[in-house]
């Protein structure tokens, strides 16, 4: 029997709703960076949460996909937190977040080239060595096709995931946004990546922004999951027989917890639909 799990991203504004609905959640994703400098009370609260439910730690500031090595002190922070919380797994983004002493303050898509593939592989190997477990790695949304690239996103991600010990945390809204923003087919993308290494799925929503007539879909995590993302989720479930963890991310403009749980139910339905398709294909074969 497949052990798919469904959960939600921990945010302080959602705390009460999450804690009162733990029986409807298989896992809670916590932003690791929020706890690197947390006081003893906050760390205790996190350990209490981890004792009540399955927790995963999600990093946002390591900058794994860079030609520049991640600083050891940042990996040490993650290692200490993982030791303390014992998460089901931990994850980071395939992004760069700083360069030349400048903090970008968000996740930026790096040039998709040999140098950043090599840099990411070296960073992931060091992360595994220091933390003790390889992180899952997440594809990022971008508003600009990164200059200095010599290959597309599917080829770049595949090279990293195939050649590392990391599984893929596939953010389907990031994929949906990049596909719309840069004119590629998200379903075709799924045929080109190693779906057997997809372990976790992120779901989120966004909004359209514009400038000089150009439009881009911004992954802002402030809106409901759009229908095409559920369709992509069903497609992944049909291609990936391994257990999947599905996390709903919401960073603001919070609806009721019930409205978020309804979105998780839709995710369950989409995965079930994909699994049914998988079984039908196996029977037909």
């Amino acid at each position, binding site marked *: 029997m497949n052990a798919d799990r469904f959960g939600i991203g921990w945010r302080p504004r959602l705390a009460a709703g999450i804690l009162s609905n733990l029986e409807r959640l298989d896992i809670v994703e916590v932003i690791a960076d929020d706890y690197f400098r947390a006081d003893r009370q906050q760390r205790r609260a996190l350990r209490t949460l981890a004792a009540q439910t399955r927790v995963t730690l999600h990093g946002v500031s390591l900058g794994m996909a860079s030609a520049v090595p991640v600083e050891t002190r940042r990996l040490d922070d993650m290692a200490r937190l993982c030791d303390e919380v014992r998460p089901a797994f931990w994850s980071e983004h395939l992004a760069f977040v700083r*360069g030349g002493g400048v903090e*970008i*303050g*968000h996740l*930026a898509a790096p*040039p998709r080239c040999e140098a950043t593939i090599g840099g990411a592989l070296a960073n992931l190997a060091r992360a595994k060595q220091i933390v003790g477990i390889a992180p899952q790695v997440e594809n990022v949304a971008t508003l600009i096709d990164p*200059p200095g690239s010599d290959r597309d996103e599917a080829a770049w991600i595949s090279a990293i995931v195939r050649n590392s010990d990391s599984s893929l945390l596939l953010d389907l809204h990031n994929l949906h946004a990049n596909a719309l923003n840069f004119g590629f087919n998200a379903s075709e993308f799924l045929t080109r990546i190693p779906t057997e290494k997809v372990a976790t799925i992120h779901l989120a929503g966004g909004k359209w922004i514009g400038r000089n007539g*150009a439009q*881009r879909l911004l992954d802002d995590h402030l809106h409901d999951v759009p229908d095409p993302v559920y369709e992509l989720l069903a497609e992944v479930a049909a291609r990936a027989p391994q257990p999947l963890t599905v996390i709903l991310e919401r960073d603001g403009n919070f609806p009721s917890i019930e409205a978020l749980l309804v979105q998780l139910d839709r995710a369950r339905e989409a995965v079930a639909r994909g699994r049914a398709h998988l079984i039908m294909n196996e029977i037909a074969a």
Partner: protein
Amino acid sequence: MSSSRLESFLARIYVDVAAREKFLADPRGEATRAGLAAHEIDDLANIDRDGLEMFAHSLEHKKAKHGNPKNQHS
């Protein structure tokens, strides 16, 4: 390594308005002065200006709203 130099260059034009304006006024010249490789200079000369500005504005918006980059999740 040129790619780390390119990452530094991109970080600066993403977050620094003055550096971005200077770059957009003379992309090839600024990229050349930064010591980037020929193919990177060519790419930057043809940069998606609307995408660059939208990304930069989204960063400014996040910083204005959250202040601390640690509070910006994805």
